[in-house]
């Protein structure tokens, strides 16, 4: 692996956006900005921005710390403080970071929250996580209970329940924490910008239907979703980022080029894969390299849907502000029941003409991982394609065994090659 990393211009743009956001957070106290901690799935970024609140996403801090090789020590710190080795490492990384002075991934101090905005979407652990943070910060907390899509669709009862909570619980809590009045027109402006950026994100994700694919929809995809899934949805900066990204991808399509990897343009695309599950962050580049070295490109992934299923048609809607925020929360990937997840992944395999399907099962996340083995078999049955299963973790470096992962991937790719050769012969 080379030391100099090749980056797309849009990546550099995003890097500036992120570092700018962390700087704003570091100066929040002096600038008088209020801060809300919240989670990515079901986040209410436009609503927070309408109150001029700065969002902090603890799981983004954790993954950034994972990529910067800081998470191991933070997890150890949390375990020394009594947190079980069995539980989510995002939580422990966040708690550990806080215990060690709450210095964020960029080296700047994170502000304490004025409000913990718990949008309880698709992950039980979120609730415990914010109970733990509430005890630590002793600050205001507001809970938005987002029901699960157990019946495979968003019910009217569920939407009404979330809207009523937004109106009667969440908005008053934001008003109180920010000291500002709710302005629905302002919210509509943010939502309109969100929809624009969402159109471009979908275009980018669906560009992987081309052969060769101009993007990697997993390793590259996690960068592409960054602005929309975090602090920038609804901002002009996000709109500009997605326009720039779209131009980059358009140019690659026109030139018949593949995605940019950390080591340059990916030229040989031997395998098109659909991937289920989050990536490992502690060895991200090493993990990605195992794919592109073998000519494997990911054409669709479920992880890039944790912050919204835009490719299935959802858009934030300025004409139905709270209703569309409710539908957004209800529609995130991990809030889907397992049969719906299987349907989605089967569609991806077919629509993106994938050669195979891979599960990266992470120890930390029951919301994703529990049931993946059953999903794998069901998808194999319905697509007729062989699947593969590997195990890593989100940010605990102890659970990334490079040799094991590589062995499994290489065996899987060999098997795909043999099947292809057999198919050609017959």
């Amino acid at each position, binding site marked *: 692996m080379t030391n100099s990393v090749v980056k797309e211009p849009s990546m550099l743009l995003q890097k500036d956006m992120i570092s700018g956001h962390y700087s704003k957070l570091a100066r929040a106290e002096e600038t008088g900005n209020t801060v809300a901690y919240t989670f990515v799935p079901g986040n209410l970024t436009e609503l927070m921005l309408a109150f001029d609140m700065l969002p902090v996403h603890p799981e983004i801090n954790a993954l950034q710390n994972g990529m910067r090789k800081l998470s191991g020590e933070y997890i150890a710190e949390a375990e020394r403080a009594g947190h079980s080795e069995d539980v989510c490492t995002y939580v422990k990384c966040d708690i550990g970071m806080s215990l060690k002075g709450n210095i964020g991934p960029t080296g700047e101090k994170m502000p304490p929250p004025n409000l913990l905005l718990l949008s*309880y979407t698709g992950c*039980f652990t979120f609730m415990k996580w914010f109970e733990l943070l509430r*005890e630590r910060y002793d600050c205001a907390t507001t809970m938005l209970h987002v029901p699960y899509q157990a019946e495979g669709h968003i019910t009217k009862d569920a939407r009404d329940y979330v809207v009523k909570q937004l109106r*009667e619980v969440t908005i008053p809590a934001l008003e109180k924490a920010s000291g500002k009045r709710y302005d629905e027109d302002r919210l509509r402006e943010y939502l309109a910008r969100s929809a624009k950026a969402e159109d471009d994100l979908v275009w980018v994700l669906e560009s992987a239907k081309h052969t060769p694919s101009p993007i990697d929809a997993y390793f590259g995809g996690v960068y592409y979703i960054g602005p929309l899934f975090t602090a920038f949805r609804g901002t002009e900066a996000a709109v500009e980022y997605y326009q720039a990204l779209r131009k980059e991808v358009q140019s690659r399509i026109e030139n018949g080029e593949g995605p940019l990897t950390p080591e340059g343009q990916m030229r040989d695309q031997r395998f098109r894969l659909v991937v289920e599950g989050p990536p490992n962050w502690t060895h991200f580049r090493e993990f990605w390299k195992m794919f592109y070295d073998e000519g494997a490109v990911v054409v669709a992934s479920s992880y890039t849907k944790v912050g919204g299923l835009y490719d299935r048609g959802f858009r934030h809607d300025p004409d139905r502000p709270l209703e569309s925020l409710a539908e957004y929360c209800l529609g995130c990937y991990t809030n889907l*029941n397992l049969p719906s997840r299987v349907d989605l992944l089967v569609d991806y395999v077919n629509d993106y003409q994938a050669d195979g399907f891979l599960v990266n099962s992470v120890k930390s996340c029951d919301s994703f991982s529990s049931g993946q083995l059953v999903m794998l078999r069901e998808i194999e049955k319905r697509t007729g394609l062989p699947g593969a299963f590997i195990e890593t973790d989100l940010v605990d470096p102890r659970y990334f065994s490079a040799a094991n992962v590589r062995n499994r991937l290489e065996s899987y790719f060999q098997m795909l090659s043999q099947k292809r050769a057999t198919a050609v012969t017959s």
Partner: protein
Amino acid sequence: MESRLTPPTAIGALTARCEELIADLDLGNVRAWRAAHPGRVVIGYLPIYAPRELVHAAGGLAVGIVGAGEELEIVRGDACFQSYICHLPRSVIELGLSGKLDSLDGMIFPSTCDVIRNLSGIWSLSFPKKWVRYLDLPQNFDASMGGVFYRGMLEGMLRELCELSGVDPKQADLRGAIRAFNANRRALRELYALRATEPWLTPTSEVYVLVRAGLLLPVEEHTAMIERYLGLAKAREARPVDNARVALRGAFCEQPPIELVKTLERAGCYVVDDDFLPMLRWPERDVDESGDPLDALVAAWLDTPLEAPSRYTRCNAEKGQVLIDTVRSTRAEGVIFAAPSFCDPALLDRPLLLGALDRAKIVHTSFKYAENTGQMQPIREQAGTFADSIKLWGEA
């Protein structure tokens, strides 16, 4: 100590019957109930809470499913779950795929954690012809929000149960069901109260199997069983010994082997309170029997101070308060935190509860188990040391 705990014959017969029921993974008594009640439905439910009154009102039998303990070899269940997922779902799937739950017409999966939530989907994929209901218990406890949502969910569930059973219960049937379960929960509260005051009369190894039998029996039969036990226990001649009085927490979902409960007693502990099987004991008050029955069930969930890791606590001051109050009211001298391995709710909650106990100056110890834990010696040593330390250095 053994001789003092040896039950009289009648109690022995009663607890032996409970142990037989629990050990019968083929659910023989449920099959017998079905045979005796043709056309009626049997509905399974998982931890940690489901309104069983609806099943009862629809003429059915609600059967609690908490895994398979230590007796069943897990093969197909292990093929469905990675090693870092708790044990309960793998044994539930094993039971299902091996046909041991064929007597169930449907299953209710409450919103206890991500694993049970996703298990509802696995169940749908594995048994497409069976009725499956995910019970999304509200975490917003305002009647106009969580209450309205929950009421809609109960109405939907009742409607589906009616379609399944062909029974259309009237309000009186629902009130009758509430009365039956209120009577059962009252009996359980009396049992817990007796154990808290005179644990030497009601060893937890007996209380536990007696309560757990309620997962499998018609509610009226279970109530009668508890009442019979209470009568026998009160008449028992037993003297207290110098055990440490402890409350146990963390075991609200996946259940420990019965041997683990016995081990705690052998180690010198009187378990004077526990959180085993809240699915049978919640709400810990009577549900209103006079008004609209569904509203009464909604209010029971919203208004009762239930403390469990699956339920959101609204402020820091609430966290652990029910536990602390229980420790005080039962005169427990310490808390044993026993949680299943890989149980996210229990293990994420543990630092919060232990912090609350520390602030209240209540001593505690922690260990993990699985439903098939076989090695009890380390637990006996840890619990014994904890009990000794309470006796040697406690304030009492």
